[in-house]
């Protein structure tokens, strides 16, 4: 009986020993500094262009500052990426720098507590105020712009336009007339790709210039819960446009099962004429269909007139967590990004698909056709307006699903709009906004 006990004690000791050795092995990894050099980690989402941008910036920066090296790491995009960023910020395990969206997604990170405030840094002087508005709270500014801005509007096939003798529409009625003509000629007038649900939101989000044109205070009123989509005759037009193109039968036949890749292919190969999309997709077209890229143009989403302008998306930002171990090095990297030189590095690395948000930066001459179409809007006074998500922190998570329903005729525009109003209520209450 005694031997029996001894043995089980021995076993217990063995098991404990194994557990402890695991723990010790765990401690030996980690540590970022090696012989006077500082290594900063930078987390970027896994979009090719973004990785290439960051790697080019890191290389150029290290060439100037040999003591600081940048280790680029990647993460998934979309909702998975949002969760990952929030988790890592909440647990204090964030990389020294990270790439993330500006606007309402950044507001959801609880920036005043989790992010490094760079409001008073001198390098912020060259960053345009449009961008600063999109990455600040009343208490601070949190990012420098990386990459270029985008426009949300309609990519169109110029070859089809030329064949049918059509002109770029500036009002919704002209757009629908064009659709009629294109449809009669046997092409798909409007391409929709609801397998990638986010692509369905463009008619609603891209319509925001038209909303602001008629009601300039709409975004602030929306944040204060004074207006909403369902009861506002102007704002609901975005949902109605989605319903109209569906009911008129202008969509490609397999819109419910198509993906973004399918949509770009149909557009490039001339099966369809219009594709509501963000202008960044131009770079995919240039890569996949270099021969047809010159046929693809871009125009802002037409409204009910008379003004016509572009809804724009700000560039992404490079942020740092408040608890970074190397605040000075992080700031010197941010200072580098906020220079004209950094813009040129980015243009060389991935080309430009929209304007930069650093003063003095110019686009290269050889931008794709569709990107060139964007520029006149930016050069016109009042030709652009930031998308709602950069003017108001209120954005409901279910918009893609709702726009898919409206765009497939499952729900009417009015029902969709009021459902979305309910959806944002939850978000606004979580953010603790006044008036909700």
């Amino acid at each position, binding site marked *: 009986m005694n*031997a*029996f006990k001894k*043995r*089980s004690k021995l*076993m217990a000791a063995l098991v404990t020993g194994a557990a402890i050795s*695991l*723990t010790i*092995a*765990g*401690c030996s*990894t*980690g540590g970022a500094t090696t012989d006077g050099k500082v290594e900063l*980690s930078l987390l970027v*989402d*896994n*979009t*090719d262009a973004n990785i290439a941008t960051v790697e080019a910036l890191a290389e150029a920066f290290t060439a100037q500052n040999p003591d600081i090296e940048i*280790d680029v*790491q*990647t*993460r*998934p*995009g*979309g909702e*998975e*990426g949002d969760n*990952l960023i929030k*988790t*890592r910020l*909440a*647990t*204090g*395990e964030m990389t020294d720098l990270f790439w993330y969206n500006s606007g309402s997604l950044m507001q959801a990170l609880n920036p005043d507590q989790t992010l490094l405030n760079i409001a008073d840094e001198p390098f912020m002087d060259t960053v345009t105020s449009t961008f600063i508005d999109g990455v600040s709270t009343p208490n601070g500014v949190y990012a420098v712009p990386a990459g270029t801005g985008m426009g949300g509007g309609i990519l169109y096939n110029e070859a089809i336009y030329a064949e049918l003798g059509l002109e770029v529409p500036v009002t919704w009625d002209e757009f629908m007339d064009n659709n009629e003509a294109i449809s009669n000629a046997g092409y798909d007038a409007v391409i929709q790709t609801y397998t990638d649900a*986010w692509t369905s939101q463009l008619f609603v989000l891209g319509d925001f210039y038209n909303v602001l044109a008629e009601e300039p205070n709409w975004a602030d009123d929306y944040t204060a819960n004074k207006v909403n989509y369902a009861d506002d005759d102007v704002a609901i037009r975005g949902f109605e446009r989605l319903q109209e193109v569906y009911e008129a039968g202008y969509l490609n036949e397999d819109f419910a099962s198509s*993906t*973004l*890749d*399918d949509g770009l*292919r149909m557009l490039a190969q001339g099966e369809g004429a219009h594709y509501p999309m963000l202008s*960044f*997709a131009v770079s*995919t077209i240039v*890569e*996949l*269909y270099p021969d047809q890229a010159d046929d693809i143009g871009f125009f802002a989403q037409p409204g009910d007139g008379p003004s016509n302008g572009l809804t724009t998306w700000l560039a992404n930002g490079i942020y740092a967590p408040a608890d970074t171990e190397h605040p000075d090095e992080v700031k010197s990297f941010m200072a580098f990004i906020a220079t004209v030189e950094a813009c040129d590095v980015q243009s060389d690395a991935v080309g430009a698909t929209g304007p930069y948000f650093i003063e003095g930066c110019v686009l290269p001459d050889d931008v794709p056709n569709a990107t060139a179409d964007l520029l006149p809007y930016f050069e016109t006074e009042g030709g652009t307006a930031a998308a709602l998500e950069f003017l108001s922190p209120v954005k409901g998570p279910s918009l893609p699903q709702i726009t898919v329903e409206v765009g497939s005729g499952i729900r009417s525009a009015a029902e969709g709009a009021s459902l979305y109003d309910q959806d944002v209520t939850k978000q606004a209450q979580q953010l603790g906004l006044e008036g909700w």
Partner: protein
Amino acid sequence: MKRRTRSILTGTLAIIASVIVFLVPFTFILMTASKTRQESAALQFSWPEQFALFENIVEVIQTRDFMLITAFINSTVLTVASVTLMVLFSAMVGWVLQRRQSRWNPAINLMVLAGLIIPPAVVPTIWVLQGLELFGTLPGLILIEVTFGLSFSVLMFRAFIAAIPRELDEAATIDGAGPIRLFFQVAFPLLRSVIVTVIVVQAVFVFNDFQNPLYFLPGDENATVQLTLYNFQSQFDTQWNLLFTNILLITIPPLVMYIFFQRQIVAGMTSGAVKG
């Protein structure tokens, strides 16, 4: 005679069904992996016009500083270590729970069931790991995988052990075996079939796990094979040819394992099913 034709018929049907279910998707993976990026974007079930499998494999392996190689090493260590610990611990827990009745048993059973029912929360788990200084290390992730797999394995072992006659233990005890020896030399070999089942199920689970490595083991040098898929698939653009090449490459090790251990696996699964 009639019966024989019928059994041949059902056999043929079963073979055709499994060809459709298993080989068709695999062919699709292989064909897409052999295409150029442009051709693969159409996602069609067609023979590649340009055969680019070799170039794709080279590119996939070289991506992000040979991340796939690191990932294979990490995944292998992770899978082997966590499955070994899981089998060892759950067999011991299952044995004690089944053989030794005590007033703790209901409480322990409740905890085991709770492990199956209650979903793990990410942030508090990270806090615990940080407290133990295990966060972001492979041993930390191994312990997490072991914890999440333990409940299921304990239930499997307990059910199986119930079918082992107590007379065996008694005979062994009379012959002078202590409890440790009784477990490791008498009982453990008898558990072979259920061990194989647990190994197969949990190895597939751990090898395929995406969520846990993503949250608990950040950093490129810590990637596991499932995370490498995200090198080629992003929210806005996906390189389908490279994605499918990657899928092909990371499907091969489990496939090879299956071919080698097929007999043990099938035997283990079926005997486990009948007796359990």
